[in-house]
């Protein structure tokens, strides 16, 4: 009999188990299953030993150029940031990795407390009152936020800024349209790169049930949330998709009257991993808690009066409310959220500001240097660690050439927005050095 390390059964075990069951073979247990295929016909290779599998995967890994061996200026939602070793080590603990959803709270206090602390930290960053235990990613979190806005307002139309990440916009459309919700777009100001708040004000009508903008927006421009909120009537939910590191420096959306704040959390100690898994964070106000999607952790006491944590308000969720649930979400990105909590704890109050400021320093230094080389910034609006510049009509080709030389240059925007041909989105982080910038300037010239 062939042995498999993950399968414990000896021949003797199987014999005894079949006897106990009272059948003569395992096949007898499959009586109801139509034999649509025999395993021999499957075009799947035979099992392999661990060493060989490792070699195969290492071979595939070698066919990639990793961020660690490149000078990185790519962002647009996923960032190459420093993750201290301690973060990965703690997140890798099997008690976190191989646990399930904390349905039995008494033996899941580690998960529950870690998520409760995570919820607190995200509330601190967003300036909101309640945060759920995570969504899949920033884009799907924004889509769920727009559905929630409509649940609150009961109005059938939402407005998105055109300066929101194009893939987020597409995700929102995919999610909301089947429910009969219309999506309209407000332009950005071509000079500043900010959402056109005046135009937004004019678009508001009786049937608008939610407005979303991104902070900083897709172009890296810091939006004026005060002006945005003033353009939106109080009863229309205001949704902000925010970058969590940026929120270390920026006044949180909660201060400007946002109703829902979401975002991609990868920048908080999660690996770029080709775009996933990171996680979506989702915050709102207490008054909306019963309409929010996803799992929520609350503090309580046990029968001995000891503090503990449980999943709360589960009657919003699919396993109880079924077709009337606030969302179909079940599995979330809890592990990624806990990894973010570990990262935020490693950085602390001062550290996250330092990370944000250093990232912004590099961007501003790079922007000035690019200007010096004749590459003007496309927008005049203020920015933190991402900005758009006029890279020239031949930039896409140059971008590929630079990658060859070990530079992951600023993103050619036409890949996501055809109308932005010749423009590029540059991103920097606390890992960007002066040497990186000099190498980019030389290669791009």
């Amino acid at each position, binding site marked *: 009999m062939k042995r498999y390390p993950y399968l414990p059964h000896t021949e003797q075990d199987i014999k005894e188990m*079949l006897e106990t069951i009272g059948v003569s073979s395992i096949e007898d247990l499959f009586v109801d299953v139509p034999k649509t295929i025999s395993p021999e016909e499957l075009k799947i290779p035979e099992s392999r030993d661990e060493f060989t599998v490792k070699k195969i995967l290492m071979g595939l890994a070698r066919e990639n150029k990793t961020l660690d061996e490149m000078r990185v200026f790519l962002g647009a939602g996923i960032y190459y940031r420093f993750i201290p070793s301690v973060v990965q080590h703690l997140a890798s603990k099997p008690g976190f990795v191989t646990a399930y959803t904390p349905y039995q709270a008494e033996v899941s206090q*580690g998960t529950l407390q870690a998520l409760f602390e995570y919820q607190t930290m995200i509330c601190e960053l967003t300036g909101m009152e309640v945060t759920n235990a995570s969504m899949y990613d920033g884009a799907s979190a924004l889509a769920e936020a727009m559905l929630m806005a409509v649940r609150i307002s009961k109005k059938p139309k939402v407005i998105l800024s055109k300066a929101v990440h194009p893939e987020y916009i597409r995700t929102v459309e995919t999610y909301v349209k089947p429910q009969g919700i219309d999506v309209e777009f407000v332009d950005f100001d071509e000079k500043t790169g900010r959402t056109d708040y005046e135009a937004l004000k004019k678009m508001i009508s009786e049937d608008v049930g939610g407005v979303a903008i991104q902070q900083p927006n897709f172009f890296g421009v810091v939006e004026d949330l005060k002006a945005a909120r003033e353009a939106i009537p109080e009863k229309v939910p205001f949704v902000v998709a925010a970058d969590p590191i940026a929120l270390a420096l920026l*006044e949180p959306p909660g201060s400007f009257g946002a109703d829902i704040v979401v975002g991609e959390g990868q920048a908080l100690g999660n690996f770029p991993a*080709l*775009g996933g898994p990171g996680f979506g964070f989702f915050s709102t106000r207490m008054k909306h808690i019963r309409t929010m999607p996803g799992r929520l952790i609350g503090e309580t006491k046990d029968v001995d009066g000891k503090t503990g944590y449980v999943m709360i308000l589960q009657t919003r969720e699919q396993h109880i409310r079924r077709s009337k649930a606030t969302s179909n979400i079940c599995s979330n990105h809890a592990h990624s959220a806990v990894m973010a909590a570990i990262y935020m704890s490693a950085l*602390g109050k001062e550290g996250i500001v330092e990370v944000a400021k250093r990232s912004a320093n590099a961007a501003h230094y790079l922007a000035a240097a690019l200007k010096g080389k004749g590459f003007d910034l496309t927008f005049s609006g203020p920015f933190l660690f991402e900005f758009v510049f006029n890279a020239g009509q031949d930039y896409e080709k140059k971008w590929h050439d630079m*990658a060859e030389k070990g530079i992951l240059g600023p993103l050619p925007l036409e890949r996501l927005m055809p109308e932005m041909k010749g423009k590029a989105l540059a991103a920097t982080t606390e890992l960007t050095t002066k040497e990186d910038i000099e190498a980019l300037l030389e290669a791009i010239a």
Partner: protein
Amino acid sequence: MTIFEKSSSGRRAYTLPDQGIPDQSLGIEDYLLRKEKANLPEVSELDLVRHYTELEAKNHSVDKGFYPLGSCTMKYNPKLNEDMAALFRYLHPYQPEETIQGALRLMYELKELLMEITGTDDMTLVPSAGAHGELTGMLIIRAYHLDRGDTKRDKVIVPDSAHGTNPASAAMAGYKVLELKSSEEGLVDLKELEKHLDETVAAIMLTNPNTLGYFERDILKIAEMAHEAGALLYYDGANLNAVMGKARPGDMGFDVVHLNLHKTFSTPHGMGGPGSGPIGVKEHLKDFLPVPVVRKDGERYYLDYDVPKTIGMMRAFYGNFGVLVKAYTYILTMGKDGLTKASELAVLNANYLKALLRGVYPVAYDPDGKRPCMHEFVADGSKLLKETGIKTLDVAKRLLDYGFHAPTVYFPLIVPEALMIEPTETESKETLDAFADAMKEIVKEARENPELLKGAPRNTPVRRLDEATASRKPIVRWTPEN
């Protein structure tokens, strides 16, 4: 104690490299800048390590002990998978395709393998979880009908034994949901189905084996009926672990198939996620897949955004790639022989445990205890409740004292006092014996000393928690006052 209470101003657990860049003025309007810093905890590296080590110790996990949660497939999560995922961490989704050929090839090959396992013709790896896949699948079905000008179909049929995500996903896709009453055998009732199948039905969502652990033996007939009525058949892959190498959903007649890589393909559950929920489709639904789809052109692997009638995007980027690496590693390791064996042993384990509990715990829809189940079975605690006043909840909590995780409880909804038990193939006979012994002991305790169960658990980091107050007066974040 929370990490906030362990915080002391001035401590930190990180250092950053010198960038060689002078401090810059950012030119942002003052009113847009933070006045008060976000109050994140300040701890040293050792404080941080102790805190999370302490939290980890309070969790039950697969690595620690038996985790027989029905419908969740809590199988062993191989260490090799984790190591292999670490080789692919530092890749940016927008890198030029020529610099990520290895990653794209991995995705392509995984897709091919999963299509072979499920018997489907194309696949998206984008969905991040089972429910995300369900929504993707239902949107594909919706787009398919509308594309054919078939606008009357406004409802989806879901059995009353289905996971809550099924009706919730159908509703999110804009459908009304019709719950189908199960037959006396706990299967799809063909007569009931016939009554409801008409030109307004867009799809039937089925889990097979179903959540009771029984295989829908009329599946070929059901598929025929659905297709005759113009409806499509959707496969919830939560229970694929029972039939790998035995039967393929595509061959059973399913048009759309979702997989849970975090169940069947051994990627860890991570306290609730991230998972991955690829969707396989038959030829006639290919053009509706969400973008991007991973494809191959000669020797070049690429992301195809040009899918003619695509439903759009389900999230940003390409899905949970890190999870895909683990599933791919698992499939390479197990091979077709190992995957088939895994399903056989999963079914053997469930039937063995069911046999051990014969006469102790009645099993739903199996009056004489002789009906074979698939990879899981549902015990019915209503007799015990009637005789002793002990609820399934009490049994579940008492199991925690014995060092086992409880089965899934009170699901499926059609079985009173349900205990849904899925041992998985990675558990040994000795573990199953020990679990059965604990269950027998607990039933004995229920008769002799019921207070022991009502007061359980006692050996856990906390005891029963006041969930009602927690939901009535929610405390959802730490503050210095609470």
